[in-house]
């Protein structure tokens, strides 16, 4: 539901059913709502049967890449020779995304249950839940929930640890997250080796997003067929997804809809549309790392993995950032690149230097000092920053630049030609 708003009739409320229900946070309250039944069921199942169920449900990773979850689990070594680990990515650092935060705030046991089921499926004894450093309240709630669940001994042999991040965006990248857990600087690692071969501490590891794992108990409860049927457009995108809507929108918040839901309806019907008298100008549908859409594209996008790709963007994390006609797209683009320039881990040359240079050019354009050739330069730098680095932070900086210049070139040209009042970027 669109907490703190009342649930909308077109939402499919599964993961967010207990958002706002403070009693669901406690172990007792969660048990009363049917919690941990699926964990008991899973622990009695063969791990491969759990994987098969999730595989056939069509569940895909909700962190951004949309990789099939069951398939990922099946990459773990068939023959267990070393300890297996599960990492849960609760770093949720993608600007515009705040769904995992709400899941942890309201339904911490849902995450613990999903985590334990996943750990069982991949035959891991230890699961690390890597919680974003800024999430003080969700962390406190998770700690409380974990203590209660441990006291009730619900996890069997599985040990779950909460690991608090220290505030680096890049630690949400899966290999950087593992470096961080190991106590090292949170730098992404080159792949291969992939985590299933050599992950945290060099041992076979699976890493999943919070929202992905929270869906797993529901799949076990209602069956893969039930989950697979929840699909409004492309059958490869199944289930429900939380969308965090923010920006120039009447009712910002989280909304849970079935994949394939029209973005237009999500914005105008569920989230109450634009602020009064304003019109939609642009939308970033999947967190700040994905290309932005103009109004026409936004209003014709179906929210699933394929539908977003069709429009030249990605479903990403489901962080929907809305810009109305008051938005200065040049400034907004600069704010995004400045974020990436600040957060670059500094390993790869293109990212370290490119994110900062891109920001400097945008700041100069905003200051009225730009040149027309700067736009081609920005596009060329973006090309050099795309697909050439260890992780995709560099690509994520390039995506908004390229998409903004493509769709809102006139605004850049207005600054360069002196038709717009210069802005000093603070």
């Amino acid at each position, binding site marked *: 539901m669109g907490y703190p708003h009342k649930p909308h009739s077109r939402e499919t409320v599964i993961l967010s059913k207990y958002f706002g229900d403070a009693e669901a946070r406690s172990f007792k309250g969660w048990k009363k709502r049917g919690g941990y039944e699926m964990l008991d069921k899973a622990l009695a199942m063969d791990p491969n049967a759990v994987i098969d169920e999730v595989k056939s449900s069509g569940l895909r990773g909700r962190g951004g890449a949309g990789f099939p979850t069951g398939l990922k689990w099946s990459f773990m070594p068939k023959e267990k020779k070393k300890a297996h680990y599960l990492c849960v990515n609760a770093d949720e650092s993608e600007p515009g995304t705040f769904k995992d935060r709400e899941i942890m705030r309201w339904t911490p046991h849902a995450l613990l249950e999903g985590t334990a089921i996943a750990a069982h499926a991949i035959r891991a004894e230890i699961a690390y839940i890597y919680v974003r450093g800024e999430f003080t309240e969700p962390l406190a709630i998770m700690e409380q929930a974990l203590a209660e669940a441990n006291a009730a001994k619900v996890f069997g042999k599985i040990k779950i640890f909460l690991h608090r991040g220290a505030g*680096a965006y890049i630690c949400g990248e899966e290999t950087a997250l593992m470096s961080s857990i190991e106590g090292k*600087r949170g730098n992404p690692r*080159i792949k291969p080796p992939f985590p299933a071969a050599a992950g945290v501490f060099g041992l076979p590891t699976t890493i999943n997003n919070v929202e992905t794992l929270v869906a797993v108990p529901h799949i076990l409860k209602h069956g893969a067929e039930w989950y697979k049927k929840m699909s409004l457009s492309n059958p490869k995108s199944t289930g429900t997804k939380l969308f965090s809507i923010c920006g120039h929108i009447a009712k910002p918040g989280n909304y849970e809809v079935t994949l394939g839901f029209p973005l237009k309806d999500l914005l105008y019907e569920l989230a109450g549309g634009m602020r009064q008298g304003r019109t939609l100008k642009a939308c970033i549908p999947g967190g700040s790392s994905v290309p932005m859409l103009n109004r026409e594209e936004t209003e014709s996008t179906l929210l699933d993995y394929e539908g977003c790709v069709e429009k030249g963007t990605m479903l990403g994390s489901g962080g929907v950032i809305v810009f109305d006609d008051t938005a200065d797209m040049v400034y907004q683009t600069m704010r995004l690149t400045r974020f990436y*320039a*600040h*957060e*670059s*881990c*500094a*390993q*790869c*040359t*293109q990212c*370290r*230097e*490119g*994110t*900062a*240079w891109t920001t*400097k050019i945008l700041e*100069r354009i905003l200051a009225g*000092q730009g040149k027309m050739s700067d736009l081609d*330069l920005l596009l*060329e*730098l973006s*090309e*050099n920053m795309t*697909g*050439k*680095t*260890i992780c995709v932070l560099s690509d994520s900086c390039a995506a908004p630049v390229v998409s903004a210049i493509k769709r809102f070139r006139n605004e850049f040209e207005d600054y360069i030609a002196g038709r717009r009042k210069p802005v000093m970027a603070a």
Partner: protein
Amino acid sequence: MADSVVNLTIDGVPVTVPPGTLLIEAAKQVGVLVPHYCYHPGLPVAGVCRMCLVHVEKQPKLAIACATQVAEGMVVTTTAPEAKAARQGVLEFLLINHPLDCPICDQAGECELQDFVFQEGRAATRYTEYSKRFNPVEDFGPDVLYVPNRCILCTRCVRFMEDVAKEPVLNVSERGDRAFIGIHPEARLDHPWAGNVVDLCPVGSLLSKDFLHKARAWELDKAASVCTGCSQGCNVTLDLRDNTVVRVRPRPNLEVNRYFICDHGRANYRWMNRGDRIEAPLVREGGELVATDWDTALDRVRGLVRGANGKAVTIASPLASTEALYLARRLLSRFDWMGAFQMVQGEEAPLAGVPNLALRADRAPNGTGAELLGYTKDVAAAVAAAATAALVFVLGEADVPVETKGVLVYAGTTLPDHARGAAVVLPIANVAEEDGTYVNRDGRVQRYFQAKPAPGMARPAWWVLSELVAEHEGAVRAVSAEDAFDMLAEAEPFSGLSYAKLGLAGARVRNGAGVPA
């Protein structure tokens, strides 16, 4: 299925390599050097500079040659337009914050940033309106300066200290374009092998204080040599400016020192430039040593050797070549002979990440060679024996005074006071001035090459001794160090070896004979 080879094509050239080979190494096999910065064969792969991007057929993205393993049938194009464009992009990014202060940079001329920008970079920058990142120069350690402005953050230095020296005092501090190489606030870069970070640095960011502003790279003459600092026998290159040794750098030898040398060896060259050299043979005339020519001096020695009988002692420097040690012994073969060499002891300093590599406590480059030829470490006994010997031959600078009732022949580079009692003084070349071989502690015979001319009339010891031996025995004269080595190789344990077989990497003596376990 145990296929022991992989076949692939790089830039149109077929190549066969063992499985697991990295593309960047396979490319070297076909003569292609893929531009790179963070990759170094002696360090763990980092894959961060993204310079070695190459095109691999059927792969959606460009691949970094330093972290991509070969696969059967792979078709790699290092010169594909998209790969070149990507590398040009990296070079442009690397240069935007680089000061381009090449005219005052020690690295200029041997700088990989210069080389690859020259090879495939843009002609001009597009980063024109902004100031460059600035951080002041840091004093990292006894011999290392860090110039952060030139740093391209390849992290070779960090990985060397962490994974090879196993003393992780360096890191990457800060993030994004503010990043720089940081040092532990309470640590210094004073590990006994720390100087390697200067060699590893592909740009002029880590500098040797010792070499600071001593020479431009293009003024240097280079000669392959062997470090004289200890019995490890690290392969080195002597860099000379105008016949003065100004720098010692490691020369890769996977069997001995991989890519590294210790700071002790690195600093151990100043004596090669000593100015107080004996430049002419000296013979005793009426109680005085007077300069003469070689014929006179050699005749005098021949006469002295012929005239002596009974006990003879050779006291050698551990810097003496195997050839000279051999001939010196052969010269006195009819005597009741005793030979010793001086072995200075120091502290052992291993390089933790490389097996069997250390600055050895035995600070003698040719102790093993001397022992194989019958010399002992017992200098005290030799000095005692010398007192009553008929003939004493001192080869090289012995720090111990030698006194004898017999005849003292002294062959050295300089004339210390305690050698002034010699009947004949023969000026010889030092290690930088002659060809020769040393035998390291593992029994590996390694050649060193002449780097500069010997001063005045000084001659290599092998030449001097060969002249004496030949006359004495009526044998053939050695006209080169190679001839002298061939004479040595007539007997065990050196049989079968030759300069051609030793090459630049050396070879072990037969069966490791006489080599301490």
